[in-house]
């Protein structure tokens, strides 16, 4: 993986791909036939059901006639996701990425991230990360109803003050990888951090479609986590609206600069 000039995570379609026909062959014929049948049946039926069939039939016919389907396009992996899936021989890859500028030197931020046990201090979804060796870490993620998800990663690239990349070991329940790059912001205004996470959604294409549909929530979470990192690095504390000191929530021993893992508006 070329981490220096990767395809933008936010590029949704390949060059010229945003208006190219994306329904072909059998699928297109099936769309035409289904559309025709639904439309015909709908026109002969009465009530809401009939109208619904007319609507769906019309959409399917349009899909078949034009060979274009916006819904399918929206659920198609991005160019970067296709690259990652191919490189790692995953059935598909779902990416998540955010960037943030933090008013601290590159070295300080790189060092903080290089100690993977620090990640749970700002990633709300991560219960803890145990450092097993200088290039191996064990992650424990929080799931609903007190369950956890665990996996081990090894460092795949380490360029001090520039880049860290990691990859899950083959026995991970959900295969995943990630990298974070550190770059000087213009005019000495700190460091631009770009973090990318990719994982292989369970259940293949269906899993990808589901992950893509629910994309907003994890993206917002990722942004919120990076803001917490920024708060911690810039002000030494994580912003919170709580009015009482937190009761200890974490089994891990508190780190000297973590004062509070504040509540957020999403409960």
């Amino acid at each position, binding site marked *: 993986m070329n981490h220096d000039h990767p395809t933008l995570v936010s590029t949704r379609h390949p060059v010229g791909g945003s208006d190219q026909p994306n329904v072909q062959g059998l699928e297109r014929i099936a769309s035409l036939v289904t559309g025709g049948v639904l439309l015909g049946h709908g026109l002969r039926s009465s009530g809401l059901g009939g109208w619904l069939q007319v609507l769906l039939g019309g959409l399917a016919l349009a899909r078949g006639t034009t060979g274009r389907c916006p819904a399918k396009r929206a659920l198609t992996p991005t160019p970067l996701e296709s690259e990652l899936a191919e490189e790692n021989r995953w059935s598909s890859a779902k990416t998540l990425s955010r960037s943030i500028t933090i008013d601290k030197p590159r070295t300080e931020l790189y060092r903080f991230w290089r100690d993977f046990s620090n990640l749970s201090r700002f990633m709300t979804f991560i219960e803890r990360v145990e450092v097993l060796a200088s290039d191996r870490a064990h992650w424990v993620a929080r799931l609903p109803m007190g369950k956890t998800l665990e996996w081990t990663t090894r460092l795949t690239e380490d360029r001090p003050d520039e880049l860290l990349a990691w990859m899950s070991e083959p026995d991970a329940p959900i295969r995943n990888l990630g990298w974070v790059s550190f770059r000087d912001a213009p005019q000495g205004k*700190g460091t631009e951090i770009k973090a990318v996470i990719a994982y292989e959604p369970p259940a293949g294409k269906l899993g990808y479609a589901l992950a893509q549909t629910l994309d907003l929530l994890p993206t917002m979470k990722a942004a919120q986590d990076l803001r917490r990192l*920024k708060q911690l690095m810039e*002000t*030494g504390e994580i*912003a919170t609206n709580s009015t009482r000191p937190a009761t200890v929530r974490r089994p891990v021993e508190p780190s000297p600069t973590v004062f509070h893992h504040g509540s957020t508006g*999403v409960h």
Partner: protein
Amino acid sequence: MRALTWQAPNRLSVETLPDPGIVNPKDAILKVVMSSVCGSDLHLLDGYVPTMHPGDVLGHEFLGEVVETGAAVTGLKKGDRAIAISIIGCGECGYCSEGHFNCCDNSNPNGQQTELAYGYSCAGIFGYSHAFGGYAGSHATYVRVPYADVNLFKVPDGVSNEQAVFVSDAAPTGYFGADRADIQRGDTVAVWGCGGVGQMAIRSAYLLGAERVIAIDRFADRLRLAEEKAGAIPLDYTRTDVHEALLELTGGRGPDRCIDCVGMEAHGTGIEQVYDKAKQQLRLHTERGAALRQAIRACRKNGTVSVLGVYGGLLDKFPMGAIVNKALTLRSGQQAGQRYVPRLFEHIQKGELDPSYLLTHPMDLEQGPEGYHLFKQKAQNCMRAVFLP
């Protein structure tokens, strides 16, 4: 402690809540001495700002006594008399470092909501909905102030509580708006809205070099105060055609700078008012923009329109054509009061500014719901009800 809480649109109640404590090392706890209502609270009351939860404590303009400080607080000690700036700054991020505390990157623990609505996360505000941080407000016995060294200011000798409490929000907001309007010596400035912020904007415009300030409102008492206390030329828009009056008063040139101190619940006249109100109540738009539209139309070519009134979402029928074709500059923002406090205290000490006349109704905290009722109805010429917990 006792606190005035929001329960539902237009339903407030005083409740007993646990006392706040130090949570983060840069926190301070203030025992509230005075806490004022603010026009922007009315948008919360009326339910136009989403993400209010039942039980949220209101209030963001306050003065009190420091009773506890966190381990990292250096500039304040127990017993200090201080005011807080309503818009919370962290003091460390790029924006705060450049004095733009109102754009703080770090003070909002719920940044995702404003990020979704406005593209970026916005600063936290005391008692102003969960989208703006969900911080408990100051209409209470005690309030927790984060980043105390940045947001709390000791009140100097010679400045009374009644004057100082408004340096928390109304005075710096008015001053910020006048400053943003880029007033040049000799300018004519028109100010829409003569509530607390409008009164302060008028006075600030003079302090920044305006030659004449014209004040627009419909309440006789507020117009009288704008004239007597702040020195403005009053215009009652229910009796006078504002646009023509502004031309008449400025030799046909129009005001150089226009300041909107009204916001999203503006009252217009005639068909515009009916249309705006109907659409707002159907939730087809969130803002009624009569005052802002009038300001944009009235502003002279190449002039500046400075928007202080609170807007939350989408405004319909926005006169972009007037902005482009008259080469207007549009500026806006929540106040960055941290930048102005020393200057404002100095003006007060020299007798050039006296916000204390805004305090028309000192009240017990237990009378909170009543205080807001008076303020909302503008009954008994209520400019500001201030609670004394």
